[in-house]
């Protein structure tokens, strides 16, 4: 699969502080790549470098096969950017803002393109309203329309759902999923929200202290933690259960007289249930909690 964006040994120093430390990655065509990491990991700095707003100390960025530095105009014409932290000019209308950007991207038939996108995102009726009077969710939609004006091959999304309420965030994520499905867009997506990254991203890159510490599919990353949390509810015979778990040396927590949970390898779950049944324990409820991306994130961040 051909890569839309190729980043090699990207490094950014702020004085003696190294914000991005020699990272390399590709964004393949039609894929959503998630950038995850704690605050200060270098996610936003990387995005800012890729837009040309911040300069890099070392490394190369190749976009659609062309060097970003020597073909900056060519590259910027074919990419776009959405961030929860950037807004459009508040006093002018949605249409006026979009018209300005359509001209900045030298879009032919700007009016038709704007109207098509407003229609697509079901916000045509907001066209004449001042941007500053829109709700946060409406602003996000307009920002996404702005980012699609130039029919980009790559969109850089820096926490696009930050500060949105769950319902609007969900709608925004649905839009992103729809865009990926219908327009074969490549997206580089940063977020703190593990759930949304799991939902929209094909691959996830974990950054920590400016370095890539893991890269895999969301499922692949969660499989890196072999343990699951097994929670059992039972009728009686607490002592038999604790004796069994102690003997097997499984770390466990007894929540009350009828509930116990333990972190064990996933493959041992059937064995434990079978053994306890054989010991005469009447299990009334079983809950297996698989590791989430958040667990992987915490696991990586703490090790």
């Amino acid at each position, binding site marked *: 699969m051909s890569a839309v964006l190729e980043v090699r040994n990207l490094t950014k120093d702020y004085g003696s502080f190294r914000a991005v430390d020699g990272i390399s990655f590709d964004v393949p065509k039609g894929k959503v790549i998630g950038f995850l990491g704690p605050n200060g990991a270098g996610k936003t700095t990387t995005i*800012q470098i890729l837009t040309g*707003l911040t300069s890099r100390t070392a490394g190369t960025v190749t976009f659609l096969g062309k060097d970003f530095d020597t073909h900056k105009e060519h590259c910027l014409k074919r990419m776009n950017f959405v961030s929860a932290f*950037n*807004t*459009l000019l508040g*006093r002018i209308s949605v249409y*006026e803002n979009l018209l300005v950007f359509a*001209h*900045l991207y*030298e879009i032919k038939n700007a009016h038709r393109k704007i109207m098509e996108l407003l229609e697509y995102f079901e916000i045509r009726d907001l066209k004449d309203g001042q941007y500053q009077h829109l709700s946060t969710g409406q602003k996000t939609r307009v920002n996404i329309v702005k980012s699609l004006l130039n029919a980009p091959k790559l969109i850089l999304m820096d926490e696009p759902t930050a500060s949105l309420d769950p319902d609007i965030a969900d709608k925004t994520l649905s839009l992103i999923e729809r865009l990926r499905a219908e327009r074969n867009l490549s997206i580089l997506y940063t977020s703190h929200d593990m759930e949304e990254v799991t939902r929209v991203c094909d691959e996830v890159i974990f950054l920590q202290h400016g370095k890539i510490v893991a890269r895999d599919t969301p499922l692949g990353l969660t499989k890196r933690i072999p343990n699951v949390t097994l929670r059992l509810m039972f009728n009686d015979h607490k002592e038999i259960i604790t004796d069994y778990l102690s003997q097997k040396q499984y770390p466990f927590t007894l929540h009350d007289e009828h509930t116990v949970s333990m972190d064990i390898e996933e493959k041992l779950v059937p064995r434990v249930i079978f053994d306890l049944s054989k010991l005469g324990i009447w299990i009334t409820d079983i809950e297996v909690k698989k590791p989430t991306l958040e667990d992987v994130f915490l696991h990586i961040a703490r090790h």
Partner: protein
Amino acid sequence: MSHTRIYAILLQEFFFMRRSVEVLFDVLLFPLVNVVLFAFLSSYIGQSVDAFVVHQLLLGSLLWQFMYIVQYSVSVHTMWNLWARNLSNIFITPIHIAEYFTAAALSGAAKSTVVFVFSGTVLMLLFDFNVFEVGIGPLALYMVSLWLFAVGVGIIILGLIFRFGTRISAFSWGFLPILQPLMATLFPRTILPAPFDSVALLFPPTYVFEAARWQLQHGTIHWYYLLMSYIGNLLFVIMASFAFRALFRKSQETGQFVRNE
């Protein structure tokens, strides 16, 4: 250079100005009130001094307003985009810095010319002073020279704000007035005490204001002053462009440019 991208910035300025009362006040109303104020003051002092002194004062105030509005326009419109957190959106489009500033400079010229013509007409109709008698050609020469200086100052101020942050954003509307007394805008340079009379010669607009006063007094263009102003202003704009480039590059290096938003 893309005309479409220059047009985009001009369009944005037009849309924005139409909806911003404070910009209309700053760019249109206050300058007009200022000129009218000077006209009343001139009428008052005209009772005891020669008419040409009064006319010098009025011409100086008109040309000063022209220069100030250009610089204000170049700097402050960018600040509105910065305050709206929209400047990054603009700078990730394929627009070149030169296109952006060309648009800002053209917009500044358009606004200040409108104000100049309007104020000049008010002075002509209400205060018996016809600035257009100086001649459209000479006036245009003075205005273009001042425009160059104002654009240069606007560019440097933006470079400084990009580099050092919005805490110095007051420069964008307050810096040029600090220089006003040193550029002998309303009075002859010789009025300035030493060493400021010599310092004034370091500012190219001083030559424009001196040339304009000369023309009112003698009826001819002081070509030497005019030439000096153009040489000075062209050099200044070139230096300002290099300074901006260096400041902008540094702001991209330090990350200050994005932090400003």
